[in-house]
Protein backbone atom coordinates (compact mmCIF):
# COMPACT_ATOMS: atom_id res chain seq x y z
CA UNK A 1 0.00 0.00 0.00
CA UNK A 2 1.39 3.40 -0.84
CA UNK A 3 0.91 6.20 1.56
CA UNK A 4 0.80 9.26 -0.64
CA UNK A 5 0.24 8.77 -4.32
CA UNK A 6 0.08 11.31 -7.14
CA UNK A 7 -1.07 9.97 -10.48
CA UNK A 8 -0.76 12.02 -13.68
CA UNK A 9 -1.21 15.27 -11.83
CA UNK A 10 -1.47 18.44 -13.91
CA UNK A 11 -1.43 21.59 -11.83
CA UNK A 12 -0.50 25.25 -11.99
CA UNK A 13 -1.50 28.81 -11.28
CA UNK A 14 -4.67 29.84 -13.08
CA UNK A 15 -3.90 29.67 -16.78
CA UNK A 16 -0.24 28.85 -16.19
CA UNK A 17 0.21 25.10 -16.25
CA UNK A 18 3.32 24.05 -14.35
CA UNK A 19 3.03 20.33 -13.65
CA UNK A 20 2.54 17.98 -16.53
CA UNK A 21 1.42 14.43 -15.64
CA UNK A 22 3.45 14.12 -12.49
CA UNK A 23 3.25 10.75 -10.80
CA UNK A 24 5.02 9.91 -7.59
CA UNK A 25 4.47 7.99 -4.43
CA UNK A 26 5.67 7.78 -0.87
CA UNK A 27 5.47 4.47 0.99
CA UNK A 28 5.09 4.17 4.75
CA UNK A 29 8.31 4.87 6.62
CA UNK A 30 10.16 6.22 3.59
CA UNK A 31 12.13 9.37 3.01
CA UNK A 32 11.53 10.43 -0.56
CA UNK A 33 13.54 13.32 -1.95
CA UNK A 34 12.42 15.48 -4.86
CA UNK A 35 15.18 17.37 -6.65
CA UNK A 36 15.35 19.51 -9.76
CA UNK A 37 16.48 22.92 -10.99
CA UNK A 38 14.90 26.21 -9.98
CA UNK A 39 11.45 26.64 -11.41
CA UNK A 40 11.05 22.92 -12.19
CA UNK A 41 7.84 22.82 -10.19
CA UNK A 42 9.00 21.13 -6.96
CA UNK A 43 7.16 23.55 -4.71
CA UNK A 44 4.14 23.24 -6.95
CA UNK A 45 4.12 19.46 -6.36
CA UNK A 46 3.88 19.93 -2.59
CA UNK A 47 1.36 22.73 -2.99
CA UNK A 48 -0.81 20.57 -5.22
CA UNK A 49 -1.07 18.01 -2.43
CA UNK A 50 -2.18 20.79 -0.09
CA UNK A 51 -4.53 22.39 -2.60
CA UNK A 52 -2.60 25.64 -2.56
CA UNK A 53 -2.49 25.60 -6.37
CA UNK A 54 -5.04 24.71 -9.02
CA UNK A 55 -5.05 20.99 -9.77
CA UNK A 56 -6.54 20.48 -13.23
CA UNK A 57 -6.43 16.72 -13.53
CA UNK A 58 -4.98 13.55 -12.09
CA UNK A 59 -5.38 11.74 -8.81
CA UNK A 60 -3.96 12.59 -5.40
CA UNK A 61 -4.55 9.97 -2.74
CA UNK A 62 -3.45 9.73 0.85
CA UNK A 63 -3.91 6.33 2.43
CA UNK A 64 -6.12 5.34 -0.48
CA UNK A 65 -8.37 8.32 0.14
CA UNK A 66 -8.86 10.85 -2.65
CA UNK A 67 -7.87 14.20 -1.19
CA UNK A 68 -8.61 16.40 -4.18
CA UNK A 69 -12.12 17.14 -2.98
CA UNK A 70 -10.92 18.32 0.43
CA UNK A 71 -10.04 21.82 1.56
CA UNK A 72 -6.52 22.77 2.59
CA UNK A 73 -7.60 23.02 6.21
CA UNK A 74 -8.99 19.47 6.20
CA UNK A 75 -5.78 17.79 5.09
CA UNK A 76 -3.92 18.02 8.36
CA UNK A 77 -6.67 15.95 9.98
CA UNK A 78 -5.70 13.05 7.74
CA UNK A 79 -2.17 13.15 9.10
CA UNK A 80 -0.24 15.30 6.63
CA UNK A 81 1.79 18.35 7.61
CA UNK A 82 3.58 20.84 5.39
CA UNK A 83 6.76 22.75 6.10
CA UNK A 84 6.61 25.40 3.38
CA UNK A 85 9.53 26.86 1.49
CA UNK A 86 11.20 29.94 2.94
CA UNK A 87 10.71 29.39 6.69
CA UNK A 88 7.19 30.68 6.72
CA UNK A 89 6.45 31.10 10.38
CA UNK A 90 3.74 33.39 11.76
CA UNK A 91 6.10 36.31 12.34
CA UNK A 92 3.68 38.37 14.40
CA UNK A 93 2.96 35.48 16.76
CA UNK A 94 5.28 34.31 19.50
CA UNK A 95 7.19 31.06 19.19
CA UNK A 96 4.82 29.43 21.68
CA UNK A 97 1.79 30.68 19.75
CA UNK A 98 3.28 29.35 16.52
CA UNK A 99 3.57 25.91 18.08
CA UNK A 100 0.05 26.15 19.51
CA UNK A 101 -1.27 26.97 16.06
CA UNK A 102 0.45 23.82 14.76
CA UNK A 103 -1.92 21.87 17.00
CA UNK A 104 -4.88 24.12 16.20
CA UNK A 105 -7.19 21.17 15.69
CA UNK A 106 -6.38 19.70 19.09
CA UNK A 107 -8.97 21.20 21.40
CA UNK A 108 -7.57 19.72 24.61
CA UNK A 109 -5.10 22.24 25.99
CA UNK A 110 -3.32 19.63 28.13
CA UNK A 111 -2.52 17.61 25.02
CA UNK A 112 -1.27 20.77 23.28
CA UNK A 113 1.05 21.57 26.18
CA UNK A 114 2.36 17.97 26.18
CA UNK A 115 3.06 18.21 22.47
CA UNK A 116 4.88 21.50 22.97
CA UNK A 117 7.03 19.83 25.60
CA UNK A 118 7.92 16.94 23.32
CA UNK A 119 8.54 19.28 20.38
CA UNK A 120 10.95 21.25 22.55
CA UNK A 121 12.84 18.03 23.25
CA UNK A 122 13.41 17.70 19.51
CA UNK A 123 14.14 21.41 19.01
CA UNK A 124 15.75 22.53 22.25
CA UNK A 125 17.05 25.74 20.67
CA UNK A 126 13.47 27.05 20.69
CA UNK A 127 13.12 26.70 24.43
CA UNK A 128 14.68 30.04 25.47
CA UNK A 129 12.78 31.79 22.66
CA UNK A 130 9.25 30.77 23.53
CA UNK A 131 8.07 34.29 24.34
CA UNK A 132 9.84 35.98 21.42
CA UNK A 133 8.04 36.97 18.26
CA UNK A 134 8.89 34.56 15.49
CA UNK A 135 10.07 37.30 13.13
CA UNK A 136 12.90 37.99 15.54
CA UNK A 137 14.37 34.47 15.23
CA UNK A 138 17.38 33.67 13.09
CA UNK A 139 16.82 31.86 9.83
CA UNK A 140 17.86 28.52 11.26
CA UNK A 141 15.65 28.97 14.29
CA UNK A 142 12.72 29.88 12.06
CA UNK A 143 13.28 26.69 10.10
CA UNK A 144 13.27 24.72 13.35
CA UNK A 145 10.08 26.47 14.36
CA UNK A 146 8.39 25.76 11.04
CA UNK A 147 9.31 22.09 11.44
CA UNK A 148 8.25 22.05 15.06
CA UNK A 149 4.92 23.60 14.15
CA UNK A 150 4.36 20.94 11.49
CA UNK A 151 5.07 18.19 14.02
CA UNK A 152 2.59 19.54 16.57
CA UNK A 153 -0.31 17.71 14.94
CA UNK A 154 1.65 14.44 15.12
CA UNK A 155 1.60 13.78 11.36
CA UNK A 156 2.08 10.44 9.65
CA UNK A 157 3.58 12.17 6.62
CA UNK A 158 5.71 15.29 6.66
CA UNK A 159 6.17 17.34 3.50
CA UNK A 160 9.22 19.59 3.60
CA UNK A 161 10.06 22.24 1.03
CA UNK A 162 13.81 22.97 0.94
CA UNK A 163 14.34 22.86 4.68
CA UNK A 164 18.05 23.64 4.33
CA UNK A 165 17.60 26.62 2.00
CA UNK A 166 19.87 29.50 2.92
CA UNK A 167 21.29 27.86 6.02
CA UNK A 168 24.97 27.66 6.88
CA UNK A 169 26.45 24.20 6.23
CA UNK A 170 26.52 23.32 9.91
CA UNK A 171 22.92 24.36 10.44
CA UNK A 172 21.94 22.52 7.28
CA UNK A 173 23.44 19.32 8.64
CA UNK A 174 21.59 19.83 11.92
CA UNK A 175 18.28 20.28 10.13
CA UNK A 176 18.83 17.18 8.00
CA UNK A 177 19.77 15.16 11.07
CA UNK A 178 16.54 16.23 12.74
CA UNK A 179 14.57 15.12 9.71
CA UNK A 180 16.28 11.75 9.86
CA UNK A 181 15.37 11.44 13.51
CA UNK A 182 11.75 12.39 12.86
CA UNK A 183 11.64 9.69 10.21
CA UNK A 184 13.15 7.12 12.56
CA UNK A 185 10.33 7.84 14.97
CA UNK A 186 7.86 6.66 12.35
CA UNK A 187 6.95 9.67 10.23
CA UNK A 188 7.24 9.31 6.48
CA UNK A 189 8.90 12.21 4.68
CA UNK A 190 8.58 13.80 1.27
CA UNK A 191 11.30 16.40 0.96
CA UNK A 192 12.22 18.89 -1.74
CA UNK A 193 15.90 19.71 -1.74
CA UNK A 194 18.22 21.78 -3.87
CA UNK A 195 21.13 20.62 -1.90
CA UNK A 196 20.93 17.18 -3.37
CA UNK A 197 24.29 15.87 -2.16
CA UNK A 198 23.35 16.22 1.48
CA UNK A 199 19.73 15.28 1.10
CA UNK A 200 20.14 12.14 -0.92
CA UNK A 201 22.20 10.59 1.84
CA UNK A 202 18.93 10.33 3.75
CA UNK A 203 16.80 9.34 0.81
CA UNK A 204 15.23 5.96 0.26
CA UNK A 205 14.12 7.04 -3.17
CA UNK A 206 14.65 10.06 -5.38
CA UNK A 207 12.56 11.80 -7.99
CA UNK A 208 14.12 14.26 -10.40
CA UNK A 209 11.72 16.89 -11.64
CA UNK A 210 12.48 18.84 -14.77
CA UNK A 211 10.26 21.38 -16.42
CA UNK A 212 7.13 20.15 -14.66
CA UNK A 213 7.74 16.47 -15.47
CA UNK A 214 9.33 13.61 -13.61
CA UNK A 215 12.54 13.13 -15.59
CA UNK A 216 13.93 10.29 -13.52
CA UNK A 217 13.22 8.30 -10.44
CA UNK A 218 14.79 5.50 -8.54
CA UNK A 219 17.19 4.72 -5.72
CA UNK A 220 20.27 6.68 -4.75
CA UNK A 221 22.19 5.11 -7.61
CA UNK A 222 20.47 7.31 -10.21
CA UNK A 223 22.61 10.15 -8.98
CA UNK A 224 25.72 8.54 -10.31
CA UNK A 225 24.46 9.09 -13.82
CA UNK A 226 26.50 11.66 -15.66
CA UNK A 227 23.69 13.87 -16.95
CA UNK A 228 22.31 14.26 -13.45
CA UNK A 229 25.66 14.93 -11.86
CA UNK A 230 26.44 18.27 -13.34
CA UNK A 231 22.90 19.59 -13.55
CA UNK A 232 21.73 18.83 -10.03
CA UNK A 233 24.81 18.38 -7.99
CA UNK A 234 26.65 21.45 -9.15
CA UNK A 235 29.47 19.28 -10.41
CA UNK A 236 30.52 21.64 -13.15
Amino acid at each position, binding site marked *: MSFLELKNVCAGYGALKVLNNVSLRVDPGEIVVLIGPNGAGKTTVLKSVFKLVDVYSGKICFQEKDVRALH*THDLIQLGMSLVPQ*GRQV*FGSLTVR*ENLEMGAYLTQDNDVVQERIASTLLQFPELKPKMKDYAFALSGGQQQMLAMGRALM*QDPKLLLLDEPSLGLAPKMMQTVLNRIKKINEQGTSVLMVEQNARQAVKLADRIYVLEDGKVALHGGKDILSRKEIQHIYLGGR
Partner: protein
Amino acid sequence: MSSILAQLLLNGLIAGAIYALVAAGFSLICSVMKFMHFAHGGVVAAGAYFLFMFSQWFSPVPAILLALVTTVLFGVFMDWSVYKQLRKRHASNAVLLIASIGLMILTTNLILIGFGADVKTIPLAQHNPVYTILGARITLIQVVIIATSALLFGLLYYLMKCTRLGKALRAVADNNAIAQTVGINPSRMYLATFILGSALGGIAGMLIGLEQNLYPSMGLSLVIKGFTGAVIGGVTSVHGSILGALVLGMVENLGIWYLPSGYKDAIAFVLLFVFLLLKPEGILGKRFERG
Protein backbone atom coordinates in the same frame (compact mmCIF):
# COMPACT_ATOMS: atom_id res chain seq x y z
CA MET B 1 -4.41 73.32 34.61
CA SER B 2 -6.90 75.70 33.12
CA SER B 3 -10.43 74.41 32.93
CA ILE B 4 -10.53 75.05 29.19
CA LEU B 5 -7.50 72.84 28.62
CA ALA B 6 -9.02 70.18 30.87
CA GLN B 7 -12.24 70.40 28.88
CA LEU B 8 -10.40 70.07 25.55
CA LEU B 9 -8.42 67.08 26.82
CA LEU B 10 -11.59 65.44 28.03
CA ASN B 11 -13.36 66.15 24.75
CA GLY B 12 -10.35 64.71 22.97
CA LEU B 13 -10.54 61.56 25.05
CA ILE B 14 -14.24 61.14 24.32
CA ALA B 15 -13.82 61.72 20.59
CA GLY B 16 -10.74 59.50 20.61
CA ALA B 17 -12.60 56.69 22.38
CA ILE B 18 -15.32 56.72 19.71
CA TYR B 19 -12.83 56.91 16.84
CA ALA B 20 -10.86 54.11 18.45
CA LEU B 21 -13.91 51.84 18.57
CA VAL B 22 -14.49 52.52 14.88
CA ALA B 23 -10.79 52.06 14.12
CA ALA B 24 -10.52 48.79 16.07
CA GLY B 25 -13.23 47.10 14.01
CA PHE B 26 -11.95 48.59 10.78
CA SER B 27 -8.39 47.48 11.36
CA LEU B 28 -9.36 44.02 12.62
CA ILE B 29 -11.25 43.45 9.38
CA CYS B 30 -8.44 44.99 7.35
CA SER B 31 -5.77 42.82 8.95
CA VAL B 32 -7.63 39.54 8.43
CA MET B 33 -9.36 40.26 5.12
CA LYS B 34 -6.53 42.30 3.53
CA PHE B 35 -8.73 45.01 2.14
CA MET B 36 -10.14 48.29 3.43
CA HIS B 37 -13.76 47.77 4.41
CA PHE B 38 -14.93 51.39 4.14
CA ALA B 39 -18.52 50.23 4.42
CA HIS B 40 -17.63 49.67 8.06
CA GLY B 41 -18.84 53.28 8.37
CA GLY B 42 -22.22 52.07 7.13
CA VAL B 43 -22.24 49.47 9.88
CA VAL B 44 -21.48 52.18 12.45
CA ALA B 45 -24.36 54.30 11.14
CA ALA B 46 -26.61 51.23 11.12
CA GLY B 47 -25.86 50.74 14.81
CA ALA B 48 -27.04 54.26 15.59
CA TYR B 49 -30.15 54.08 13.41
CA PHE B 50 -31.15 50.60 14.59
CA LEU B 51 -30.92 51.83 18.16
CA PHE B 52 -33.04 54.85 17.20
CA MET B 53 -35.61 52.55 15.62
CA PHE B 54 -35.79 49.94 18.39
CA SER B 55 -35.86 52.52 21.16
CA GLN B 56 -39.20 53.75 19.81
CA TRP B 57 -40.70 50.37 20.57
CA PHE B 58 -38.73 48.82 23.41
CA SER B 59 -37.20 49.79 26.72
CA PRO B 60 -33.44 50.59 26.67
CA VAL B 61 -31.87 47.19 27.38
CA PRO B 62 -33.78 45.13 24.80
CA ALA B 63 -33.47 48.00 22.33
CA ILE B 64 -29.68 48.05 22.70
CA LEU B 65 -29.39 44.26 22.44
CA LEU B 66 -31.66 44.11 19.40
CA ALA B 67 -29.77 46.94 17.74
CA LEU B 68 -26.47 45.18 18.37
CA VAL B 69 -27.67 41.88 16.95
CA THR B 70 -29.21 43.48 13.86
CA THR B 71 -26.10 45.55 13.22
CA VAL B 72 -23.88 42.47 13.42
CA LEU B 73 -26.22 40.65 11.03
CA PHE B 74 -26.04 43.65 8.71
CA GLY B 75 -22.24 43.58 8.71
CA VAL B 76 -22.14 39.83 8.15
CA PHE B 77 -24.71 40.20 5.38
CA MET B 78 -22.46 42.73 3.62
CA ASP B 79 -19.65 40.19 3.65
CA TRP B 80 -21.83 37.31 2.57
CA SER B 81 -23.75 39.11 -0.18
CA VAL B 82 -20.90 41.06 -1.74
CA TYR B 83 -17.36 40.37 -0.54
CA LYS B 84 -17.71 36.61 -0.35
CA GLN B 85 -19.12 36.46 -3.86
CA LEU B 86 -16.18 38.54 -5.08
CA ARG B 87 -13.68 36.36 -3.20
CA LYS B 88 -15.11 33.29 -4.92
CA ARG B 89 -14.31 34.96 -8.22
CA HIS B 90 -10.77 35.74 -7.04
CA ALA B 91 -11.38 39.48 -7.10
CA SER B 92 -8.36 41.65 -6.36
CA ASN B 93 -8.16 43.78 -3.24
CA ALA B 94 -8.71 46.87 -5.37
CA VAL B 95 -12.05 45.46 -6.52
CA LEU B 96 -13.02 44.71 -2.91
CA LEU B 97 -12.08 48.25 -1.93
CA ILE B 98 -14.28 49.71 -4.66
CA ALA B 99 -17.11 47.38 -3.62
CA SER B 100 -16.74 48.60 -0.05
CA ILE B 101 -17.08 52.23 -1.14
CA GLY B 102 -20.17 51.24 -3.12
CA LEU B 103 -21.62 49.53 -0.06
CA MET B 104 -20.90 52.63 2.02
CA ILE B 105 -22.85 54.83 -0.41
CA LEU B 106 -25.63 52.24 -0.62
CA THR B 107 -26.00 52.17 3.16
CA THR B 108 -26.20 55.96 3.34
CA ASN B 109 -28.94 55.90 0.73
CA LEU B 110 -30.85 53.11 2.44
CA ILE B 111 -30.84 55.18 5.64
CA LEU B 112 -32.04 58.18 3.67
CA ILE B 113 -34.92 56.17 2.22
CA GLY B 114 -35.82 54.52 5.50
CA PHE B 115 -35.43 57.41 7.92
CA GLY B 116 -35.35 60.61 5.88
CA ALA B 117 -32.71 63.32 5.62
CA ASP B 118 -33.52 65.19 8.82
CA VAL B 119 -31.41 64.63 11.93
CA LYS B 120 -32.69 62.20 14.54
CA THR B 121 -32.20 61.99 18.28
CA ILE B 122 -32.27 58.72 20.17
CA PRO B 123 -34.88 59.16 22.90
CA LEU B 124 -33.04 56.95 25.42
CA ALA B 125 -30.82 59.72 26.69
CA GLN B 126 -33.35 62.12 28.12
CA HIS B 127 -31.92 62.14 31.58
CA ASN B 128 -28.23 62.98 31.25
CA PRO B 129 -26.72 64.45 34.42
CA VAL B 130 -23.53 66.51 34.22
CA TYR B 131 -20.48 66.08 36.44
CA THR B 132 -17.44 68.32 36.87
CA ILE B 133 -13.84 67.05 36.99
CA LEU B 134 -11.00 69.60 37.33
CA GLY B 135 -13.31 72.25 36.03
CA ALA B 136 -14.25 70.20 32.95
CA ARG B 137 -17.83 69.15 32.40
CA ILE B 138 -18.66 65.56 31.53
CA THR B 139 -22.08 64.04 31.03
CA LEU B 140 -23.16 60.61 32.21
CA ILE B 141 -23.32 59.44 28.59
CA GLN B 142 -19.76 60.56 28.04
CA VAL B 143 -18.67 58.62 31.11
CA VAL B 144 -20.45 55.60 29.65
CA ILE B 145 -18.66 56.13 26.32
CA ILE B 146 -15.23 56.15 27.95
CA ALA B 147 -15.97 53.24 30.27
CA THR B 148 -17.51 51.08 27.53
CA SER B 149 -14.60 51.72 25.18
CA ALA B 150 -12.03 50.91 27.85
CA LEU B 151 -13.88 47.69 28.71
CA LEU B 152 -14.16 46.66 25.06
CA PHE B 153 -10.48 47.33 24.38
CA GLY B 154 -9.58 45.18 27.38
CA LEU B 155 -11.84 42.37 26.15
CA LEU B 156 -10.47 42.65 22.63
CA TYR B 157 -6.91 42.47 23.92
CA TYR B 158 -7.73 39.36 25.94
CA LEU B 159 -9.51 37.77 22.99
CA MET B 160 -6.67 38.39 20.53
CA LYS B 161 -3.83 37.41 22.88
CA CYS B 162 -5.23 34.68 25.06
CA THR B 163 -7.92 32.74 23.22
CA ARG B 164 -7.64 30.09 20.55
CA LEU B 165 -9.92 32.12 18.28
CA GLY B 166 -7.86 35.28 18.69
CA LYS B 167 -4.60 33.52 17.96
CA ALA B 168 -6.12 31.86 14.90
CA LEU B 169 -7.36 35.25 13.66
CA ARG B 170 -3.85 36.65 14.05
CA ALA B 171 -2.40 33.63 12.27
CA VAL B 172 -4.75 34.16 9.32
CA ALA B 173 -3.91 37.87 9.27
CA ASP B 174 -0.23 36.97 9.28
CA ASN B 175 -0.20 34.27 6.60
CA ASN B 176 -3.49 32.96 5.32
CA ALA B 177 -2.18 30.02 3.28
CA ILE B 178 -0.01 28.70 6.08
CA ALA B 179 -2.86 29.16 8.53
CA GLN B 180 -4.93 26.86 6.34
CA THR B 181 -2.22 24.22 6.32
CA VAL B 182 -2.38 23.96 10.11
CA GLY B 183 -6.12 23.34 9.89
CA ILE B 184 -7.63 26.79 10.32
CA ASN B 185 -10.80 27.14 8.24
CA PRO B 186 -10.55 30.58 6.65
CA SER B 187 -14.29 30.96 6.02
CA ARG B 188 -14.97 30.61 9.72
CA MET B 189 -12.31 33.17 10.54
CA TYR B 190 -13.78 35.63 8.03
CA LEU B 191 -17.18 35.16 9.64
CA ALA B 192 -15.75 35.67 13.13
CA THR B 193 -13.93 38.77 11.90
CA PHE B 194 -17.08 40.36 10.53
CA ILE B 195 -19.04 39.46 13.66
CA LEU B 196 -16.43 41.00 15.95
CA GLY B 197 -15.68 43.99 13.74
CA SER B 198 -19.36 44.78 13.18
CA ALA B 199 -20.12 44.43 16.88
CA LEU B 200 -17.39 46.96 17.67
CA GLY B 201 -18.68 49.24 14.90
CA GLY B 202 -22.28 48.86 16.02
CA ILE B 203 -21.44 49.70 19.62
CA ALA B 204 -19.48 52.74 18.43
CA GLY B 205 -22.52 53.84 16.42
CA MET B 206 -24.88 53.40 19.35
CA LEU B 207 -22.63 55.38 21.68
CA ILE B 208 -22.32 58.22 19.18
CA GLY B 209 -26.05 58.10 18.65
CA LEU B 210 -26.59 58.66 22.34
CA GLU B 211 -24.20 61.62 22.36
CA GLN B 212 -24.93 63.33 19.06
CA ASN B 213 -27.61 63.70 16.41
CA LEU B 214 -28.02 61.04 13.73
CA TYR B 215 -27.77 61.92 10.06
CA PRO B 216 -27.63 59.58 7.04
CA SER B 217 -24.00 60.19 6.04
CA MET B 218 -22.65 60.01 9.60
CA GLY B 219 -20.98 56.68 8.85
CA LEU B 220 -18.77 58.13 6.15
CA SER B 221 -17.28 60.83 8.36
CA LEU B 222 -16.77 58.31 11.15
CA VAL B 223 -15.06 55.70 9.02
CA ILE B 224 -12.73 58.38 7.70
CA LYS B 225 -11.83 59.24 11.28
CA GLY B 226 -11.41 55.57 12.12
CA PHE B 227 -9.30 55.03 9.03
CA THR B 228 -7.13 58.05 9.82
CA GLY B 229 -6.62 56.80 13.35
CA ALA B 230 -5.76 53.38 11.96
CA VAL B 231 -3.20 54.86 9.55
CA ILE B 232 -1.60 56.88 12.34
CA GLY B 233 -1.28 53.80 14.52
CA GLY B 234 -0.67 51.16 11.83
CA VAL B 235 -3.62 49.88 9.81
CA THR B 236 -3.06 46.19 10.36
CA SER B 237 -2.24 46.51 14.03
CA VAL B 238 -5.45 46.59 16.05
CA HIS B 239 -3.70 48.00 19.11
CA GLY B 240 -1.89 50.56 17.00
CA SER B 241 -5.17 51.68 15.44
CA ILE B 242 -6.73 52.20 18.84
CA LEU B 243 -3.75 54.26 19.93
CA GLY B 244 -3.74 56.24 16.67
CA ALA B 245 -7.44 57.02 16.95
CA LEU B 246 -7.00 58.26 20.51
CA VAL B 247 -4.16 60.49 19.31
CA LEU B 248 -6.39 61.79 16.52
CA GLY B 249 -9.21 62.64 18.91
CA MET B 250 -6.81 64.48 21.19
CA VAL B 251 -5.05 66.40 18.41
CA GLU B 252 -8.35 67.43 16.83
CA ASN B 253 -9.67 68.80 20.08
CA LEU B 254 -6.46 70.41 21.25
CA GLY B 255 -6.10 71.94 17.78
CA ILE B 256 -9.22 74.01 18.24
CA TRP B 257 -7.47 75.65 21.17
CA TYR B 258 -5.69 77.61 18.43
CA LEU B 259 -7.92 77.19 15.40
CA PRO B 260 -11.63 77.74 14.78
CA SER B 261 -13.55 74.51 15.41
CA GLY B 262 -14.41 74.26 11.71
CA TYR B 263 -10.80 73.15 11.17
CA LYS B 264 -11.29 69.86 13.07
CA ASP B 265 -11.66 67.76 9.95
CA ALA B 266 -8.80 69.57 8.26
CA ILE B 267 -6.54 68.62 11.17
CA ALA B 268 -7.50 64.97 10.67
CA PHE B 269 -6.66 65.07 6.99
CA VAL B 270 -3.38 66.85 7.50
CA LEU B 271 -2.41 64.14 10.00
CA LEU B 272 -3.55 61.46 7.56
CA PHE B 273 -1.36 62.82 4.76
CA VAL B 274 1.61 63.38 7.02
CA PHE B 275 1.53 59.76 8.14
CA LEU B 276 0.82 58.36 4.68
CA LEU B 277 3.84 60.23 3.36
CA LEU B 278 6.30 59.93 6.19
CA LYS B 279 5.35 56.82 8.16
CA PRO B 280 2.86 54.73 6.18
CA GLU B 281 3.29 51.74 8.48
CA GLY B 282 2.05 53.86 11.41
CA ILE B 283 3.31 54.05 14.96
CA LEU B 284 2.96 50.38 15.88
CA GLY B 285 2.40 48.71 12.54
CA LYS B 286 5.19 46.53 11.24
CA ARG B 287 5.93 45.50 7.75
CA PHE B 288 6.62 41.80 7.74
CA GLU B 289 8.71 40.65 4.85
CA ARG B 290 7.80 37.37 3.30
CA GLY B 291 10.44 35.01 1.92
